[in-house]
């Protein structure tokens, strides 16, 4: 049975015990080519340099290239070995990156070629990612708002949404945020009639004229007021982190707070804005040389802005898992 209706899996934010566990991060953002993979690679390096044990997961099903951003050859083992049961444990698919404390689980090359993985396979990967024995798992997502992408995003304790200052990117990111939120409701909601309403909301045109989470909550509250409260609470707990990349002007720098205000007004979703990264030729030059920006050392405005974002992420990681405050892996 691959029905999405069986909730075979509780996302970690649904229930989090107090035991030691891995903090999961994901970088998404709807549109392709905006720097998700670049940020993932460099964020991974920054966190590893901050004395955390980090495993990068290339979850861009069908377009994996995280290894390239890290200046690595195509790893010999990857996620498909785990899915195809050639590797018994997911840990067996981790490749050293050359940066101390930073491992990579490379994207699958074959079975995931079409990004069409089976639901049960996806669930197995999701479930297993949570068990990787490390401090932090950082996932690079593909573009788009397919359920696969969204589910990896929702697996994360902290999901980063990336945007670049272009209308198309904003549009896609907004759609991504909204879809992710609806999808999270869909995962939490166990009652069939309400699931129907959520699924309906996910359609552009729908019977109830639901266009925003506010509209959805209004409809749900009318059916069941206490549930409406619950949805409202879920809305407040849904706080993707926001990063703006490829900033070229002073005006662009104001974009982050403005996007945040607009999302709050329109969706009721309060993004947690981490900062921006300047557009910089050194970035693509580094990509061409097949090295990660942070791997080379040196200093530039871009490098320090990546570090700025990494430090913000680090604070949130430590807030979630105070044991990581000393940066002691182990």
């Amino acid at each position, binding site marked *: 049975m691959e029905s999405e209706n069986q909730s075979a899996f509780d996302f970690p934010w649904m229930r989090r015990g107090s035991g030691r566990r891995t903090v999961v991060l994901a970088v998404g953002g709807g549109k392709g080519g905006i720097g998700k993979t670049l940020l993932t690679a460099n964020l991974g390096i920054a966190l590893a340099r901050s004395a955390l044990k980090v495993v990068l997961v290339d979850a861009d099903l069908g377009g994996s290239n995280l290894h390239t951003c890290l200046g690595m050859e195509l790893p010999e083992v990857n996620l498909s070995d785990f899915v195809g049961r050639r590797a018994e444990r997911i840990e067996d698919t981790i490749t050293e990156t050359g940066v101390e404390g930073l491992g990579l689980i490379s994207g699958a090359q074959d079975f995931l070629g079409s990004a069409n993985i089976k639901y049960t396979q996806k669930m197995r990967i999701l479930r297993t990612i949570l068990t990787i024995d490390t401090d932090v798992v950082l996932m690079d997502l593909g573009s788009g708002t397919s359920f696969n992408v969204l589910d990896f995003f929702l697996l994360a304790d902290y999901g980063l949404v990336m945007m670049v200052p272009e*209308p198309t990117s904003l549009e896609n990111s907004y759609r991504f945020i909204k879809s992710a939120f609806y999808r999270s409701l869909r995962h939490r909601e166990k009652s069939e009639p309400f699931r129907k309403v959520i699924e309906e909301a996910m359609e552009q045109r729908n019977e109830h004229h639901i266009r925003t989470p506010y509209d959805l909550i*209004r409809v749900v509250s009318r059916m069941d007021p206490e549930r409406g409260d619950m949805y409202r609470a879920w809305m407040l*707990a849904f706080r993707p982190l926001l990063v703006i990349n490829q900033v070229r002007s002073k005006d662009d720098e104001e974009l982050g707070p403005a996007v945040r205000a*607009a999302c709050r007004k329109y969706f009721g979703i309060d993004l*947690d804005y981490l900062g921006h990264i300047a557009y910089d030729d050194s970035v693509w030059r580094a990509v061409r040389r097949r090295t990660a920006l942070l791997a080379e050392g040196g200093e530039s405005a871009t490098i320090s802005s990546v570090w700025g974002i990494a430090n913000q992420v680090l604070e949130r990681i430590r807030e979630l898992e105070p044991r990581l405050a000393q940066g002691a892996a182990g």
Partner: protein
Amino acid sequence: MKDFREQNYYELLELAPHASQQELEVAYQRARRIFSPGSVVTYALFQPEELALLSRRIEEAYRTLSNLEHRKRYDEELSKLDGTLWEPPPEDAPAPGPSPACPEAAAGPGAAPAPADAAAPHASSPPPKEEPAAPAGVEGLPLFQRPSSQPPADGPAQPGSAPALSEPGGGTAAVEPSAPARVAPEPAAQAHPASLPPAVAPTAPEAPPPAAGAQPGPPPSAAPTQSSAPPAASQPPPAGQCPPPMPELDERTVYDGRLLRQVREARGLDLERLANLTKINIFYLRRMEENDLSQLPAPVYVRGYLRLLARLLKLDADKLIAGFDALAAAKG
């Protein structure tokens, strides 16, 4: 948080209730920039009509709030509809404390300044560059003063830190969202019912306040004279009705939801009021008091809530958090 059609002027501009004129100016310019029709940030979100309506509301908000006379009247209106917005901070609020007739419960709310940092789940994050996050916000709890003509003594230091007056749930719970906003609706004959706030517009300064919508309250006609009296919501529980005694706190005390409830009751607070004070969703408060953690958000948020509750209820925050951690562990 509310749909912008239901937001009052302060919420629209993301201003604290007693924000200074300068803060108002900054917030207004900002809102104009962000929500102007050509803005790249909004184009993919709002329909043109919505943007037009929003812009109009922002202009109205500014027009009203920038005129001291109109603002005062508007504040009075608001406080009638939702007294909790305007009630004095816990320091001098008689309400959460025991009534004087019950001396044994005299601990009182004390000078517990609700810290801004307890407001957001990412409590210990660096100061946000922008408004504090809304979740669990007691955002600016100490800032909520009764409207008066005095300048705000402890207003947000920087304009940017003015918290949104948004309602993360608690208060809104009682309000059917599709009903007219708690901010009084317009007379039905108007073109944009429910979308426009009370007619405190400059053009009709003497217009009688519109009928209160969502909340049963004093009839609006009683308004002008009543305005200086403290809003009903902040009145202490009727004397003679003593809250239950404060539970003993010692090393055997189990810090859990039951204790939260006992202490809350001993302090004469009902759940709704606590939700209003803390801006924690009443649904969450109920679950916490029932020790039901399965419906709560990630612990990082819950910890924020607990810290905030501890502050308000005068409990040891660390013990409370440890208590809930233990609960979570026990329940797997």
